Each structure stands twice: as C-alpha cells, then as structure tokens.
C-alpha cells in the first residue's frame, strides 16, 4: 500500500515537472516505479534481516543472566525453551522464580523489539522515499535504475531452477553421507540382502552396533528389481509405442492422426496412482487367475503386472517422441528411396529408421528413466519385500517402492533406516540424471543434424 501511494506521488511529481514545461527524462510511470522501489526494498531488507536475527539476539540477552553460573550449553537451551513456553502460556512444568523473571524479561524484550522494529522500518521508509523524491525533483534519470532493478528480479527468478537442483542435492547428500558412515559403501552396492526392518527393531537406547547392519542394507536386490521391472515395462512400451509412432507419422491419414494422437496421449495424462490401482486390483489378480489355470505359481503382486501396466503408461512418451523424430526426417530421403522403387515399409525400415535412430534411442532412454523413477504403480502393485529374482511371476521391489515404504509414517532423522531411503534416493537421482543427460544430448544432436 505504501508502495502504491509512493508510486502515485512519484507520478504526480513528474506531471508537475512536466507542467512547468521542463522536459522529462523518462515517462511519468517510471518516476512512480522509482519511488515505489525505493520505498519497498530497503524497508523489506531491514525487515527480513530483523526477523532472522531477532530470536538469536533475544536469546543472547536472556541467557546473559545465566552466564558464569556454570550451566552447560544444553541446559541453557532448555532454560530458554522453558522461558519461551511460559511466556506463551503453554508451560506445564514447575515454574521457578528464575524462569518467571526471565519470561517477563522475554516478553518485555519482545515488545521493545516489536515497537522498535516498526519505528526503524518507518524511519527507513521515510528516509529512502525522501532521498528518492529529491532525486525526482531534480529531474534525474529514472528509467535506467528501474529497468536495472526489474532485470535483477528476472535474473533472480531464473536462478530458481538452479536453486531447486542445489536443494535436491543438499537434501540428499548429507543424509547419504551419514548413512555411508554407518554402512560401508561396498556393502550397500554389492550386498545381496535388503532387510531394513531389522534396523528398526533395535532398541533405540542401545549404541549403534555396526556388525548388526552388515547384512541389512545390501541394495543389489532392489537395483535388480528396479531394472527388471523397467525392462518388462519397456518390453511392452517399445514395440507398441514405436509401431504406433511410425504408423501415425507415415501411414495415418490426417483424420486418423487427428483423433488417435490425442487419445493415445490421454494415457500419459492419467495419474500414476490410478494406474497403480488398476494394476493392483485388476491386472494382478487377472494374471494370477490365468497362472493358476495354467498350473503356474503366480504371485498376486507379480513384477509382470506392475511392469506391464507401467509399460502402458510409457507408450505415449515413446510414440509421440518417435513420431516427432520421424516427421522431422527430411522428405528428400523418402523421395530418394521411393524413386529407387522401394515400398513404403522398405523405405521406413531401411532409410527412415536408421536416419531417425538417434532420436528414437533418445526417446527410449527418456522412457527408461521414467520407468525407473515411477513410484505409485510399483508401491501399489508390486511386492514390498526385496527378492533377488528374475522370474516375472514373483514379486520384487524397486528403489522408489522402498523409499516410500521406509518413509511412510513418522521418520526419525539420524536413523540408518531413514538415511537408507535418502541413499536410495541419491542413487535414483544419479541414475536418472545420467539417463536424462545422455538422452537429451542425443535428441538435441539429432535435431541439429537436420535443421
């Protein structure tokens, strides 16, 4: 609101300058923006700095009473927490006179801080607005600083993507490092026994016993399960997705294309939890019934059900990406092949497909990365116990499913089990990152080739 009023005054000032027949150096709005920025930004900076440092300073002041009395750091912290709770009226324990006085002091300090904050912020607003107003009166340039400011805002916004990546890496890396302090990296990568519940049963008051974990966090069954299910998914998705992509790009009439393409893409828009429900409730029992009829032992949570449904989910990614890639193959290649008397399918198989291969490989890699990172289908339709198996009819578990299993409900940070989830997340992030980088690079290179 203050910002808006200063915008208004700035513009008004500019109009008055204009009316005295002097030439303005910028449009009147810019004077308004200039004043508004000067009004808002310094005050905002001071306000946020204040908000960050106030608690620490108050704490220091309160605890200075207790200094030199031989308290340990932890005890001091406890006293401070008690004080805060008492002043909020939420304290339930025994109220000693010491805490009583310091809580009064705390309230006192808080109110001083509150009022001085208001005063200081107001002073700064007035000072900076006055400064800016004077500069306006002297008809200085205002467009450049305003635009520079906006440019800075835009630049900061573009850093958000980097910040997110940094955030992901940081959230994963600390827990992962802690995890590998307890569990050797070698055991994690090459161990074949995954049974994190074992680490949970332990009495939390006992000291950590490294030998206990030695056979608990071997991630091989999980990695194997992840790639196995992704493999099954790709077995479904690649033939169907690729063939429909080729058909849509090369054979389909305009009309078929117009309807079939969006319909197939609906498959990509369905939330994965819906696929999970479908796989768990329909496909799993269906496969089990078929299996029992054929005399096979089929688990209701078989890898086949999860992988198959995941494959259906990935069909549209592969089909629309390969469709794009094939359509961007230059017409001259086709014409040349037809001129040699080749049929359409021969042209596709011998000319277009090799030309489009890099792009198709890229789209398949993106599909694989999606299959590896897919969570809900696996959580709902495949097993939660990590079996090391290559039988698609048995149940296996994946990285994502294990993360969910470990972290669902309450988590205790600092527990190796929780950290294991972050370590799994880290490996998932690294694997998908590599796949994505390779895939994006391949696709980009391919595009440049024909542009």
């Amino acid at each position, binding site marked *: 609101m203050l910002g808006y009023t200063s915008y208004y005054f700035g513009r008004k000032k500019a109009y008055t300058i204009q009316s005295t027949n002097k030439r303005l150096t910028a449009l009147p709005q810019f004077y308004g923006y200039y004043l508004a920025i000067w009004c808002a930004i310094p005050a905002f900076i001071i306000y946020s700095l204040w908000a960050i440092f106030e608690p620490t300073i108050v704490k220091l002041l309160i605890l200075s009473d207790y200094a030199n009395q031989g308290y340990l750091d932890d005890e001091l912290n406890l006293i401070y927490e008690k004080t805060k709770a008492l002043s909020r009226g939420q304290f339930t324990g025994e109220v000693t006179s010491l805490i009583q006085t310091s809580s009064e002091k705390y309230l006192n300090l808080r109110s001083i801080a509150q009022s001085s904050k208001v005063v200081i912020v107001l002073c700064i607003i007035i000072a900076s607005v006055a400064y800016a107003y004077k500069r306006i009166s002297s008809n200085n340039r205002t467009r450049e600083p305003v635009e520079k400011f906006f440019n800075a805002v835009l630049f900061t916004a*573009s850093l958000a993507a980097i910040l997110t990546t940094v955030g*992901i890496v940081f*959230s994963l890396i600390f827990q992962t490092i802690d995890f590998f302090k307890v569990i050797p990296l070698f055991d994690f990568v090459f161990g074949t026994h995954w049974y994190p519940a074992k680490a949970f049963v332990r009495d939390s008051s006992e000291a950590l016993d490294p030998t206990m974990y030695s056979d608990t966090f071997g991630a091989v069954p999980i990695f194997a399960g992840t790639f196995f299910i992704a493999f099954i998914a790709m077995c479904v998705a690649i033939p*169907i997705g690729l063939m429909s992509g080729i058909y849509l790009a090369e054979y389909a009439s305009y009309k078929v294309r117009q309807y079939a393409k969006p319909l197939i893409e*609906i498959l990509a828009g369905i939330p994965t939890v819906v696929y999970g429900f479908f796989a768990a409730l329909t496909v799993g029992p269906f496969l089990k019934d078929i299996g029992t009829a054929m005399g096979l032992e089929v688990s209701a949570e078989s890898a086949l059900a999860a992988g198959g449904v995941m494959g259906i989910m990935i069909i549209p990614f592969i089909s629309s990406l390969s469709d794009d890639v094939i359509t961007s193959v230059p017409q001259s290649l086709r014409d040349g092949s037809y001129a040699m008397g080749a049929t359409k399918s021969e042209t596709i198989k011998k000319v277009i497909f090799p030309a489009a291969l890099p792009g198709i490989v890229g789209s398949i890699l993106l599909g694989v990365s999606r299959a590896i990172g897919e969570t809900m289908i696996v959580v709902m339709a495949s097993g939660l116990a990590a079996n090391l198996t290559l039988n698609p009819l048995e149940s296996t578990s994946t990285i994502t499913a294990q993360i969910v299993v470990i972290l669902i409900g309450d988590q205790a940070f600092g527990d190796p089990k929780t950290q294991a989830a972050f370590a799994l997340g880290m490996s998932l992030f690294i694997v*998908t990152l590599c796949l994505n980088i390779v895939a994006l690079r391949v696709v980009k290179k391919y595009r440049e080739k024909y542009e």
Partner: protein
Amino acid sequence: MNKNKEKLLAKRYSSEKRFQFLGKSAIFMALLFLAIFIFKIFSTGYTAFQKTWLIVPVNFDAETMYLDANPSKEDLEDADYFEISLQSMFNLDKNANEKQQNELKKMVSYFFEREIKQELINDPSLLGKTKDVYITASDDLDQVFKGNYPRDLPENQRRVTDYQLKIFDQLVEQGKVESKFNLSFFTYPDSREAELAGIASSFMGSIFSILVCLAIAFPVAVLAAIYLEEFAPKNRFTDFIEVNINNLAAVPSIVFGLLGLGILLAVFQLPRSTPLVGGITLSLMTLPTIIIACRASLKAVPPSIREAALAMGASRMQTTMHHTVPLSMPGTLSGTIIGLAQALGETAPLILIGMVAFVNTIPGSPMDPAASLPVQIYIWAESAERGFVEKVSACIMVLLGFLIVMNLFAQIIRHKFEKKWS
C-alpha cells in the same frame, strides 16, 4: 526369371501389408488399453454415487431422552439419543437375543445416533411421536444391496451374518430399504468406515495445494522464462541454467518428495502433512514445465513485433513487458494449466511429506493437515474393506473429471486467444 520377380514382388507387398497391420494393431492395442481402463473404473465406480439407507421407525420418547415436554434448543442438543436409537434398531426384531441385538446394531453405521438427533433438531415437534428415519446402512449391507458382495459364501467367510441378511431381506420386502444419491461422498471428510467416508477433506487439500503451487510456480516461472528468452546473454551460465531446467523436468517426482522432506520439513521446520508444504513441493516440480511452455510461447512471437516496438523508441524492458509478454500469455497460461493438472495427479512426493496421514476434519486453510485426492485414492486402495473399492473408483472419476476439465480449458485458451502468425 519373370516368375521369380513376381514372387519377390508378392513377397515385398505382403511384407508391406504385414508392417501396416503391425502399426494399426499397435495403435489399436494402445486404444484398447485406454478403453478397458476407463470401462473398468466406471463399472466399479458408478455405484459409489448411490448410498443405501434403512428406513427405521424411531420413537422419540421424551422420557428415555431425559427431556421435559417443552425442551429448549440446548436441551435437544444435550439429550441422550443413544437409548432411543438403540431401541429403534432392536425393534426391528422384537425376539432378538443379546447376540442378535448386537448384530442389529451393526447393520447401520455408527453415525446412526447423530442422524436421529439431527432429525429431531430439525423438527422439534416430533418429540413423543414415532417417525420413519433414514439411517445409513453399514457398508457391508450397502455392498450386498448393490450386488457387489457374494451371498453364497459360507457364513464364517462373510462379514454379514445370516441373521443380518434375514432382517435385511425382510426390510427390502417391506420397501424399507432405499438407495439414494450419495451426497455425503462429497461433503464428508475421510473416515475409517466406508459408508461414511467422503472426499471433502482431500478435495480441499488438493485445492489448497494447487493454489499454493500456482501462487509460487507461476510468477517465478514466467519471470525466469522472460529472462532466459529475452534478456539472457548467450554464455556458459545461461546454458547451464537451461540444461538444469531440462533435467529438472525429467527428475522423478519422488526425488522432489525427498527434497520436501529433507529441506522444507527438516531444515525450515514447516508443519507436516499440510497443503502448504505439499504446494511448495509441487511448485518446484511444475516450475520447469511452466518455464518450458512459457519460453516456447515467447519464442513463437515473431521478431517483427519486437523490432517494431524498438523502432518506435521503446526500451527493451518496455518492448517485452508491453508487447511480447501479453502476446505470449495464452500459450503460457495453457502451459501453466497443464502443469497444474500434472501436479494435481501427483502422489509420491505428497506421501513422503506426510500428507498420507488419516485426516477426519475438513481443512480450512493451507496450514491445516490434509490429504489430497490422489493420496486419498492410495489410502483407500490400501484398505482391506470391500466398500472402499467402489469409493476408490469414484474418487478416480472425480479426479479424472478435474483433469479433463483443466486440459479442455487449456485447449480452449490456446485455440481461442492465441494469435496465428503466418
């Protein structure tokens, strides 16, 4: 020689046909999956929009409720309804023994006392009279009535006893069982009892998360896209940002859940299970999607517009803000809606930040614990009770309905408002 050629030609043509057939069947398979899928969801889900009610005569006896003849409103609120509710159930079979009385009580939802109370509060003149009241049947009977529950199982494998079935069939014969539109599915929060569970809490949770997500992701993404497309110098750093954005768009969603857990909950100490944290996590996820869409639509604005504005003496900032950005808005908006639709269907990150907790209140702000629609689907799908299966399908139908509406909206914006440059 000629014969050989013909043979070869025939072979080539048949292989051509085979290839075309493969392509057609691939498309057919994909569409078949879609059809099976939608059919399955609708066929199991549509019954959830109906709910079975038992019509039970209730005697509003003032004495059993400890009320005098002219009770005030507070008296009615505080009165003891348990006894008359219980009595009215027992009256269905006057000769029932204790075990059977217990079974009678279990034929209706545990909410029945409150339903009877509501009846009296709505019409205080009923006091001392007997009236037929609609009472929600238990979910097992509900399923029996809808025909989803096999009756021919032996009794010990069923959740409904023979006795309950007998009484129920009597009621059906007397026309005392009715199926009506299930309004409570939309107005009630989640519940452990299938017959009382509704989507109100998760629905509000979804709305709040999406609003938070929109409030954060949209401005940041648009500003970032403007910078990258219009102002950024071509150097290593901006290339790095670009690669970063493209990679973020393909990072699995569960990793964003870990980010929410490790940073938002553990470092910033934001409250668990709230749409606020969910929305922030989702906004980080949709950010790249919106940036990419916005950049594409900025790129589609022809350079002639920019050149014309610059030629008229506008600064670069003015050109962008007054001409390029407004012209690119339809594309940006439709990209944003599609990104939000993706975020609306996202489950895994929300589970990790604790939005999977059982919430039986309707959240009033983004700071209250809540679930969201997809998480609700997951919670119900994991419960063993049969009554939840149709609820899941119905919830999926609601969610899909929303996604379809959002996508249509995005299409309409794109086609109606986007200028065609050619």
